[in-house]
């Protein structure tokens, strides 16, 4: 009887391909109408000898907000940067596993990196506009990609600034240096820059950590607004922020994605003891 059970398992194709019987994380099952925008599978990443990501598997639903939480150094920024291959810039980095965006493995070939980064844009911790005019900041991407020029470019700039609710405030100041803007406006401008290259995914690496609470609230409002058009993945230190804005949350600890699921579930009935400890503030 026992032997028979063993045979049965050995022949099962699903278990045969699975490295562990008990996966640490399960990609959430979405409803039929919902599309997975990004899927990371068995992602491992090393910086030299140090393993920063351990067997991470997750799925990001299209036009939703996914938050990654966890203490410093847990690998959440590293994971975020895997999604548009920004880790490629670091020497001595080794990546195994796959990340699929719209079903295509972005690590399969060195292929079209610019196209990937256009599609999967990034907003950084410090708002970092170029020391150029507001207009030129938004126009930078379209110019580099020869997407538009002249009147068409003007239209694109307006559209992009409208998308982040800056147009009405700044339409008469487009020639001013972007460095004069407030931090919150700068961060909005950085998002407008992505809108201008028609990004579909916005990766946000602690986008509010340089902002005061009021500005943070405004950016969170913007994120809810952007969700209609963009898929957003946000890394945050701020658990409340994750709880406020995100649809799905992943909790990371020491390179592992401990738990991933609907935000309400993660914050109300976490399945893993470590998640519970973190969100209740026992460590972090």
């Amino acid at each position, binding site marked *: 009887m026992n032997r028979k059970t063993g045979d049965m398992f050995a022949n099962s194709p699903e278990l045969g391909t699975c490295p562990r019987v008990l996966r640490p994380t399960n990609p959430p099952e979405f409803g039929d109408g919902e599309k997975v925008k990004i899927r990371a599978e068995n992602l491992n990443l090393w910086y030299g000898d140090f393993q920063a990501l351990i067997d991470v598997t997750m799925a990001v639903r299209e036009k939703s907000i996914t938050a990654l939480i966890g203490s410093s150094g847990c690998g959440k920024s590293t994971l975020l940067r895997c999604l*548009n291959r*920004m880790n490629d*810039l670091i*020497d001595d980095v080794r990546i195994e596993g796959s990340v699929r965006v719209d079903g295509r493995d972005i690590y399969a070939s060195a292929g079209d*990196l*610019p*196209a*990937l*980064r*256009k599609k999967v*844009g*990034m907003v*950084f911790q*410090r708002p*970092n506009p*170029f*020391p*150029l005019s507001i207009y030129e900041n938004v126009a*930078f*991407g379209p*110019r*580099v*990609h020869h997407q538009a020029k002249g009147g068409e470019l003007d239209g694109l700039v307006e559209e992009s600034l409208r998308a982040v609710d800056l147009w009405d405030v700044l339409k008469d100041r487009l020639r001013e240096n972007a460095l004069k803007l407030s931090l919150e406006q700068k961060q909005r401008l*950085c998002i407008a*820059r*992505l809108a201008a*290259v028609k990004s579909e995914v916005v990766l946000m690496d602690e986008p509010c950590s340089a902002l005061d609470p009021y500005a943070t609230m405004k950016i969170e409002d913007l994120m809810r607004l952007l969700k209609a058009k963009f898929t957003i993945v946000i890394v945050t230190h701020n658990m409340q922020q994750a709880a406020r804005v995100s649809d799905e949350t992943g909790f990371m600890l020491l390179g592992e994605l401990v738990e991933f699921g609907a935000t309400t579930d993660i914050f109300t009935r976490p399945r893993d003891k470590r998640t519970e400890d973190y969100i209740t503030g026992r460590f972090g």
Partner: protein
Amino acid sequence: MRNESLKQRLGFGVLLLATLIVVVPVLSILVLILLKGWGALSWKFLLTMPRDGMRAGGIFPAIVGTTYLVFVSIAFALPIGVMAAVYLSEYARDNWLTRTINLAIINLAGVSSVVYGLFGLSLFVIFLNFGVSIIAGALTLGIMTLPVIITTTREALRAVPHAYREVSLSLGASRWQTVRHAVLPRALPGILTGAILSIGRVAGETAPILFTVAAFYLPKLPTSLSDQAMALPYHLYVITTQIPGIPESYRYGTALVLIGLVLVMNITAGVLRARYRKKR
């Protein structure tokens, strides 16, 4: 407590003194040259050919020669230097080749100028058969000034915040587009500073042009890059040591013109730089 403030004052005093020691020679050179050379300055001095075995007339051909040398050598060295610096700072990985190149650049900066002169003589004048000519002299001066341009350009590129590169790349720009649109424009003022420093050196150096271009005396102006030319620093040397009976004001007048020429070129580059800073 009082002791500490006394020490502080003493410390600052010493620092101030050191600063003054730096400034004093600069000022005294300028004052000396202005006082002794001002009398020689006239349109005739600036715009006519020398006469009477260079004891009278003007220094026009030397001014023309030096201007040629500055423009040709900068036109040669600036693009090459900037491109090399961009490669070293933006593309090169830290390996033995890069380290060797860096070492070579440092050493190039340390080579004495008369050695450049000999090098120019053997490579450009003799081996490449350019003859003693403006092109041979300008190339020699250009090679001499390359390390200055490379070093200042590289520092200017390093001063561009890393975030700009990251943003540009994250917007899907290629590495080259990032350099071209996000990095170089920010570094341009620093690069111009390098050009300014080089102009001063190129205009003032005597040894590298000694065997490669400079003529003792020429009755006519150079008409092409393969002509010999007179040059201000060499002319100054000639009238100071080789020809007796030249009025002192001529010598100081020539020095004044040399300094003035460099100043005018520097101011031009400085205005360009200021304009650019304002525009961006």
